[in-house]
């Protein structure tokens, strides 16, 4: 970095690249997870708002997309404004979305006939600018399509989350294909917290940050979204967090 002054050509080039990328077209704002370990891995200290993010489910979640949908709901639940949720299969159970911190009055669902219509609704929502965020359950996401979505998100500063959900688990290898999304996550349900009594504790996810533009990949073991959409780090049985304490009481009662 100290060399930058000494090499004016390189500095000029960097400035030009930044200009082409349009990074500072508007002040980049981010949405932190509120967990230091995760936020430190993301450039800017959180999820970029005017950008496209991909979330896929791991293992069985690749086809049901349950954990991925809750992860997305927890993110957009912490942003103000209406949320547009585009899907092709209407099997989402609204009470669970409410439990992940997204109020039902804020979400407008669109049930598209096919993937093409779904992507056009997704893009329309991102271009509109009056929404807090757009979530879409997509199977195939090509480079071209994702770039359009990314540009639409950049132009309005609306966050776009593509919940990747495939019809067959064999198609899940599609996640290896490159897209223009800023980050790519994989959320896998793992055994829940151990309780001193029989029962299922607070749900846990293994969250992998597979790809992150201008950042490195990482993975975390977290507790699933609470009613405010916040994730939590699992604590040992001895000094558990307040939220998981409440969960244990509920399970024990």
């Amino acid at each position, binding site marked *: 970095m100290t060399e930058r002054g000494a090499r004016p050509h390189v500095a000029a080039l960097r400035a030009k690249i930044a200009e082409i990328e349009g990074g500072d077209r508007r002040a980049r704002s981010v949405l932190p997870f509120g967990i230091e370990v995760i936020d430190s891995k993301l450039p800017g200290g959180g999820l970029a708002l005017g950008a496209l993010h991909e979330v896929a489910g791991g293992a069985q979640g690749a086809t*049901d997309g349950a954990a991925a949908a809750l992860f997305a709901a927890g993110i957009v639940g912490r942003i103000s404004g209406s949320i547009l949720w585009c899907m092709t299969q209407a*099997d989402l159970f609204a*009470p669970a979305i409410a439990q992940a911190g997204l109020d039902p009055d804020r979400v*407008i669902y669109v049930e598209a006939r096919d993937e093409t219509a779904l992507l056009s609704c997704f893009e*329309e929502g991102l271009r*509109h600018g009056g929404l807090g965020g757009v979530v879409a359950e997509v199977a195939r996401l090509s480079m071209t399509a994702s770039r359009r979505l990314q540009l639409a998100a950049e132009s309005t500063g609306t966050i776009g989350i593509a919940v990747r959900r495939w019809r067959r688990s064999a198609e899940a290898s599609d996640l290896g294909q490159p897209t223009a999304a800023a980050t790519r996550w994989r959320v896998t*349900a793992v*055994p829940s917290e151990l309780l001193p009594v*029989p029962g299922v504790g607070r749900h846990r996810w293994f969250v992998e940050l597979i790809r992150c533009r201008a950042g490195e990949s990482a993975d975390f073991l977290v507790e699933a979204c609470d009613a405010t959409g916040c994730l939590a780090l699992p604590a040992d049985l001895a000094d558990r967090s307040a939220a998981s304490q409440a969960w244990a009481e509920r399970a024990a009662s």
Partner: protein
Amino acid sequence: MLTAANAAARAIGLHAGMAATQAQALVPDLLIMDADLEADRQALERLAIWSLRRYAPIIALDPPDGLMLDITGADHAHGGAMGVLRDILKRLAEVETAGRAVCAPAYGAAHALARYGADPFRVVDPLELADAIGDLPLAALRLDRATIMSLSKLGLETIADLEAMPRASLALRFGSKPGQRLDQAYGRASEPFEPIAAPERIEVERRFAEPIGAPETLARYTHKLVDQLCQQLEEAGVGARRLDLRFHRVDNGIEAIRAGLARPSRDRKQMGRLLCDRIETVDPGFGVERMLLAAPAVEPLRFRTISNLGDVPVPDVAALVDILGNRVGEERLYRYAARESDIPERSVTRIAPMADPTLLRWPERWPRPARLFARPEPIDTMALLPDHPPVHFIWRGIRRRVKRADGPERIYGEWHMSEAEWLSVRDYFLLEDETGARYWVFRQGDGMDSATGGQGWFLHGLFG
């Protein structure tokens, strides 16, 4: 002569066209009233104007007892042609009127099937058209009585019989009418209509000296018409809830676009965009000589104060709802709201995307699955009765061993909804297998008494 007979009258042997004296002989205390043809016609017209607001942009009267609705391009709001017909019949039944509704590719066919078809409610697609109308009697063809009489003397009974006749000799003997009606029934010839217009409607039109056809030109004039319409709306102090754009083609055909708005509006840009989005669906044929834009449904529009202090005003979400609604269909755009029911599939209802905020919320005490199957899937389980969770279960051919479980959560049938649910019970369990996947399963019944359910196990949803 009797002019009309409803189901009750037909049951006692009366039918339309019967002589009044004969009817009186059959039913001694029959009350006879003079038919008021003029009042009937007016009622039909009122029905037509009501349908114009609700169903389709092009509606013509078909006296004495019919209405012709051209639902092309307007049926998506009700979920297809089937939805439109169902809605019409349901609403007619609510005012105790029996109706027959048929949707067919050609008006002649729809006319014939609605009056002479066996089915009072039917959607005929183009491929089965010939089969559907072939068996109908000749009377269905809208020919005059003398022609039908002499055709039946020749042994022709059904439309298919007439269709099989050589056309030239038919025309020589009976004139061009039978051939023309046949063509209209089979959809080979078009039929001009004079659509009705609601008296107080706000509409603007533009006639062209030279027919236009290019989509760009159509779009340009659409914008001009929208401008004019907005002016009229502004003078009337109202906003449009629905827009009908009709294209009258030089060959007498009419193409139409219908667009709905979630909130009353007179925003030129938004309206222009909604209509132009669908211009590609319009087939201009040999050219369009007249364009007509109307607002059949309007609502008062009040001014709103917009505070500009601090934040930049954000665009209204209603505009987005309109765009998406016109693209995927209004019924595919909704919000979920809570309903007071413990049965999972009944606890959620769909409401309009721009409906007022709801107050009711789902109880948060028990975790709910992120995905709920429309149809619970049966699973094979091994479980201790009456109230233990399964030890393992087989779903979609894979055996899953349960490591942890929560439950049971007992949900009772809603006896006030149906008699069959008087005793029924479901016991829900949250199961977690060794990989960490979490399932929502239930047992139909309480595990003891077979009156409460069949004791089978089902997978109802998946947790994240």
